[in-house]
C-alpha cells in the first residue's frame, strides 16, 4: 500500500469519528453561543475572532456548524438505524420463511423503490408538515426497501450453504436459523450497507432542509445553514460554503471508510 493510500485509510475514519464526537461534545467546545448575534458585520469573512466568518444575522458560523452537527448526524443516525434495522429484520424473515410471504413483501418493497426518494420526502412533508418524528420516520422508510433488497439477496445465498441445511436437519426452528446461523455470516455486508444508507440519508435530509422543508428554524442542521445564508452566495460569503463542505466531508469520509474496510461498493440508490 502506498503512503497516500495508508494516509487516506486513516484520515477518513478519523473525520467520521470527529463529527460523531462533535455531535456529543460540540456545545462544550463551541467558541460562541450559536444563537447570539455577535458584534460583527453580516456575512463577515474568515478572521481570527470568527474562524469561519459570520452568518446573515452576524452570528458565529463555526459555532452554528458545531451546533448543527447534532441535528444532521443525530437525525441521520437514528433514521439509518430504523431503515437498516427493519430492512434487516424483514430481509431475514423473507429468506427464512420464503414462499408467498417472501414474494409479496419483495413485490411491495420493489414497487416502493419506484418512487424517487426526494419525491417521497416532498409528498410526506406536504401532507404531514415537517417535524422531527415525521422527518426521521420518513427518511427511515424511504431507504428501507434498498436495505431489504441487499439483506435478502445476501441471506438467500447464506441460507443455501451447507451449515444452514445441517442446522435445519438438526431440527432447529426458523428463528434459530435466522439469528444464529444466517445473521452472524452477513455482518460485513450489513455494516457496509449501513454506511451507504447513512450517506443517502444525510444527503436527502440536507436537501430537504436546504429546500426549507426539513429541520425547521430556530433549530438548524447543516442543510438549513446553507439555506439561511444563500443570500450571501453572490458575495462569496464563507457562511454558504462551509456548512455544505461539512456535509461533503462527512459523506465522502463515510464513503472512503466503507471502501477501506469492506472493499468498493456498488452504488446508486
Amino acid at each position, binding site marked *: 500500500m502506498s503512503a497516500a493510500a495508508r494516509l487516506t485509510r486513516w484520515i477518513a475514519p478519523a473525520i467520521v469519528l470527529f463529527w460523531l464526537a462533535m455531535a456529543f461534545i460540540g456545545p462544550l467546545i463551541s467558541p460562541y453561543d450559536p444563537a447570539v448575534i455577535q458584534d460583527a458585520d453580516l456575512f463577515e469573512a474568515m478572521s481570527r475572532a470568527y474562524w469561519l466568518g459570520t452568518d446573515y444575522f452576524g452570528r458565529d458560523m463555526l459555532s452554528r456548524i458545531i451546533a448543527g452537527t447534532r441535528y444532521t448526524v443525530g437525525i441521520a443516525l437514528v433514521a439509518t438505524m430504523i431503515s437498516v434495522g427493519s430492512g434487516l429484520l424483514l430481509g431475514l424473515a423473507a429468506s427464512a420463511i420464503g414462499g408467498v410471504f417472501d414474494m409479496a413483501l419483495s413485490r411491495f418493497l420493489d414497487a416502493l423503490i419506484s418512487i424517487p426518494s426526494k419525491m417521497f420526502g416532498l409528498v410526506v412533508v406536504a401532507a404531514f408538515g415537517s417535524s422531527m418524528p415525521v422527518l426521521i420516520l420518513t427518511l427511515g422508510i424511504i431507504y428501507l426497501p434498498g436495505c431489504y433488497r441487499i439483506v435478502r439477496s445476501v441471506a438467500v445465498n447464506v441460507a443455501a450453504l451447507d451449515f444452514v441445511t445441517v442446522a435445519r436437519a438438526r431440527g432447529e426452528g426458523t428463528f434459530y436459523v435466522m439469528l444464529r446461523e444466517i445473521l452472524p455470516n452477513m455482518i460485513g455486508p450489513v455494516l457496509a450497507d449501513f454506511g451507504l444508507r447513512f450517506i443517502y440519508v444525510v*444527503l436527502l435530509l440536507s436537501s430537504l432542509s436546504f429546500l426549507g422543508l426539513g429541520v425547521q428554524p430556530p433549530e438548524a442542521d447543516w442543510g438549513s445553514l446553507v439555506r439561511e445564508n444563500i443570500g450571501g452566495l453572490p458575495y462569496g460569503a464563507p457562511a454558504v460554503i462551509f456548512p455544505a463542505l461539512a456535509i461533503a466531508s462527512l459523506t465522502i469520509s463515510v464513503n472512503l471508510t466503507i471502501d477501506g474496510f469492506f472493499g468498493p461498493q456498488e452504488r446508486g440508490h
Partner: protein
Amino acid sequence: MNALIGRLLLQRLVAAIATLWFVATAVFIITNLLPGDVAQELLGQSATPDAVAGLRKALGLDVPPFERYLSWLGHLAMGDPGKSLVNGMPVATLIGSRLGNSLLLAGITALVAVPIALLLGITAAVARGSLYDRIVGAGTILVVSVPEFLVASVAVLIFAVHLKWVPALSQLGRINGVWDVIRVFALPVFTLTCVIVAQMARMTRAALIDALSSSYVEMAILKGASRSRIILQHALPNAIGPIANAIAFSLSFLLGGVIIVETIFNYPGIAKLMVDGVATRDLPLVQACAMLFCGAYLILVTAADIAAIVANPRLRHQ
C-alpha cells in the same frame, strides 16, 4: 424484432403501468392519512367553522375515502388534477405554464451531458487502471457523494463571483439574443451536467469494461487485431445495450437534481412550483407534480430496460 422481444417489451410496459397505478395509490394514501381533519390542519386553529366546512367541501372530504380515491384517479387519468388550494387556479394550468421551462432545462442538460459522459466513460474504460482512469473515478465518486447544492454553490463562486462570466441567479424573461440564453442557462446546466455525468460515466465505464473482459475480445487480441479495431468493432457494439441503459437510468437523476437547481437559481420550472406547493401545503398541486415526476422517472427506467432488451444480441437472433 421477434416474438420473444415483443413479449418482453409488453411485459415491461404492463409492469410500468401497474407501477404507476401503485405510485398514484401510495401518493393518495400518504396525502390522505393525516389523522384528524386536513381542512382544520391547513387553515390553523383560528379558522372559522364556515371556512373549515368550505375547504372540506372543496377538498371533497365529505365523500367517503374510497369514492374520493376513485374520482381522484379518474380525474388524474383524464389530465384534470383539480384546483390549487392556494389561489384556486386549475393545477393543470399552473403546471402547463412551467412545464416548458423545465423540459428546456432538462433537454439542454441532456444534450450537453450525454456526449461528455460517454467520452469520459469510454476513454476511462480504454485506459483502465491509468492515472487518467483513477482521476475520472475519484472525480465521479466525489460528485456522487456530495449534495447537489454544493456543486451549484461552487459553480456560482467560481463562474459568477470570481470570474464574473455569468450572473449568480437565473432570470428568465429579460432575454435578448443567444448570448443571454447562454448566460441564464450556464450555471443551472453546468450543475445538472456534473450530477448526471458522474453517474453516467461510471456506468458507461463499467459496461465497456465488462465487454472488454469477454472471451471474444481475448480472441480478437490473440488474432492480433489492432487496439482501435478491438474497441470500435468488437467491444463497443456489444456494450451499446448496457450503455443505453446507463444513459436512460442516469437521466433519471435529473429529476432529483432539478429540484435543487431550480430552487437555488430561482428558475421558474415545475420543481420550483412543487417545492413552493409543499411549503404552502397545496395538496392537489403537490399530488399532480409528484405524479408527473414519478411518471417521468418510470418512463426513463422503463426506457433503460427496453434499451437493454432490444440491444441484447442474444435475444435478437433467437
